[in-house]
């Protein structure tokens, strides 16, 4: 897991702001997004329609919400593979509450609280017992979804109240959905936390060198615990949105979301080894993944073939800068 990090190159002086912005990861993502957008508009006449573009956003908002918190977690050097299972468990609990006659505010509260509790459970195991998060969350992934399977079996919960449908199906203004609004607001909040607060600096510092952080007086364990709680919280919120959008709960809900959320984070330029990344990159990556899947969907490409493009995109985007650098240094392979 923890591959040996490459020795860091420390330049004598920082690049000029303009040139560093042009050659940044985010700029690369913007170029890719524009390219895909252009290709899509040429490939399908239905693409450039406000409602099509609005539908497009549903492809990534839920996973994107999870990816925002996951980005912080990965920057701090940890990972959470149980997010999709948290979605399933929170959704199951909301379904149970519906059978007991709960109203919309209670449902939302249950979804969010269950998500938070699951995240706290992960956080406790990782920080209190000092266990590797990848293994812990593989375990809790089976456990959380397993509980959903025990409760639901092959059944499904339906009958969510009509007012509950707003979260996943409602529009705030014209074609701007509630989900998209929530995603953008959350992105701004996470951007602020990561890039403008001392908490965010600590997250980067922990990812770069947890031992040095410990000696510098940073509460590494507590910071990581908070990050796990945040990831659980976002999964709970995503669960509310997905359940509301689908109007039903099955134990297999949100299957595979964890890998898609992680793909978004990595595609967004966050180092899987920790210590580097930006929220803007993750937001751009979320848009790119939405663009790719929606554009291919308009061309009637089956979902499974889309996944090839997502996989290729991930590997090529990560490999491109490496190959480019080696070519410039003239020492390829």
């Amino acid at each position, binding site marked *: 897991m923890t*591959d040996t990090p490459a020795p860091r190159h420390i330049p004598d002086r920082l690049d000029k702001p303009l040139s560093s912005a042009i050659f940044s990861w985010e700029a690369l993502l913007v170029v890719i997004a524009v390219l895909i957008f252009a290709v899509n508009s040429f490939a399908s006449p239905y693409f450039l329609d406000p409602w099509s573009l609005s539908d497009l956003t549903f492809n990534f908002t839920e996973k994107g919400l999870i990816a925002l918190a996951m980005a912080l977690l990965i920057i701090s050097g940890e990972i959470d593979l149980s997010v999709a299972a948290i979605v399933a468990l929170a959704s199951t609990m909301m379904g149970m509450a519906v059978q007991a006659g709960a109203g919309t505010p209670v449902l939302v509260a249950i979804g969010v609280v269950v998500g938070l509790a699951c995240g706290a459970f992960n956080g406790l195991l990782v920080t209190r017992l000092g266990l*590797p998060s990848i293994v812990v969350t593989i*375990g809790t992934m089976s456990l959380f979804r397993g509980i959903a*399977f025990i409760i639901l079996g092959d059944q499904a919960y339906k009958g969510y109240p009509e007012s509950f449908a707003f979260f996943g199906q409602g529009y705030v203004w014209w074609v701007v959905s509630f989900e998209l609004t929530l995603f953008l607001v959350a992105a701004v909040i996470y951007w602020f936390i990561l890039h403008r607060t001392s908490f965010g600096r600590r997250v980067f510092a922990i990812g770069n060198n947890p031992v040095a952080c410990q000696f510098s007086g940073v509460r590494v364990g507590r910071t990581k615990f908070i990050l796990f709680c945040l990831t659980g919280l976002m999964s709970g919120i995503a669960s509310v949105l997905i359940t509301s959008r689908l109007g039903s709960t099955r*134990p297999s809900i949100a*299957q595979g979301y964890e890998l898609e959320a992680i793909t978004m984070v990595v595609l967004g330029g966050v180092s899987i080894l920790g210590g580097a990344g930006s929220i803007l990159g993750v937001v751009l990556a979320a848009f790119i993944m939405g663009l790719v899947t929606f554009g291919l969907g308009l061309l009637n490409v089956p979902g*499974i*073939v889309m996944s090839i493009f997502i*996989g290729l995109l991930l590997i090529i985007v*990560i490999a491109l800068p490496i190959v480019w650098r080696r070519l410039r240094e003239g020492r390829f392979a």
Partner: protein
Amino acid sequence: MKNFLKYRELWLLAGIMLLIGLISIRFPGFADPANLRQVFNDTSILMILALGQMVVILTRSIDLSMASNLCFTGMVVAMLNAAHPAIPIPMLIVIALAVGLVLGAINGFLVWRLNIPSIVVTLGTLTIYRGATFVISGGAWVNADQMSPDFIGFQRAAFLGIPVLSWIALLVIALFFVVMTRTAIGRSIYAIGVNPTASVYAGINVGRTKFIVFCISGMIGGLAGYLWISRYVIASVEVANGYELNIIAACVIGGISIAGGIGSVGGAVLGALFLGIISNALPVINISPFWQMAISGSAIILAVVLNARGERRQGRIILRKAEAA
């Protein structure tokens, strides 16, 4: 010291005995040798896969693409068999190994030459290989009636009273045991996991060894592809979906440290057996199979909590053993 090294495997073995004992209370026939042979046979594919994953995890890497590799290779051999039933089964197994090797080598090349973290590479190839299965099959299934009797019957044929599938598993276990404990490449794999920097100074080519490790896990994935398809006699895009995490779970329960360098062939086999026993036992003791996921999840968490104690000590002991050797 040597007895101490086997500590973890002994504990796991005791846990498995206890599990079998508990199941026997509810269903006395479970501990029957014939039934245990059946359980072993049912777990063979998971054991083989866990061994392939183990060598990857030992080098501080991970291969998330094994189940997709299995799915793709299984589809290739199933389609070959459906189109040309005359191809002998040993030839098909060689083809499966070769296809798996190519898929593994792609992972290995990206990890070795481009230095991309293995979790990112295999996360990408996980979706690519499964998508490629759809592309080559056009989404169609290969059903039992399209497969030749040999294709289905080969692994079921009994040799000395034990099915060929179990023999293949035993052979793979023996092979891995020899390679991991008696060869230079086995030692290098452990060394890289314990301390990659020191391994470089010791003259080990870390990148190339990682490449080899991914080739091994790829070949294992390919072999498991044929075995899986001929066992469950259906090849589709959905085969073994999400199974990569079961494979890693078997390794974790078997005491293989995700931080690399710690783990043994016996541990991986026992970890897989543990999961195999649970999935075999639940139906016979009248627990809904829906409990299986939560139980194996709890087992993983419990295993990692127990393994975390003394993991550091264990690492030093391996080093000391290497010094003594």
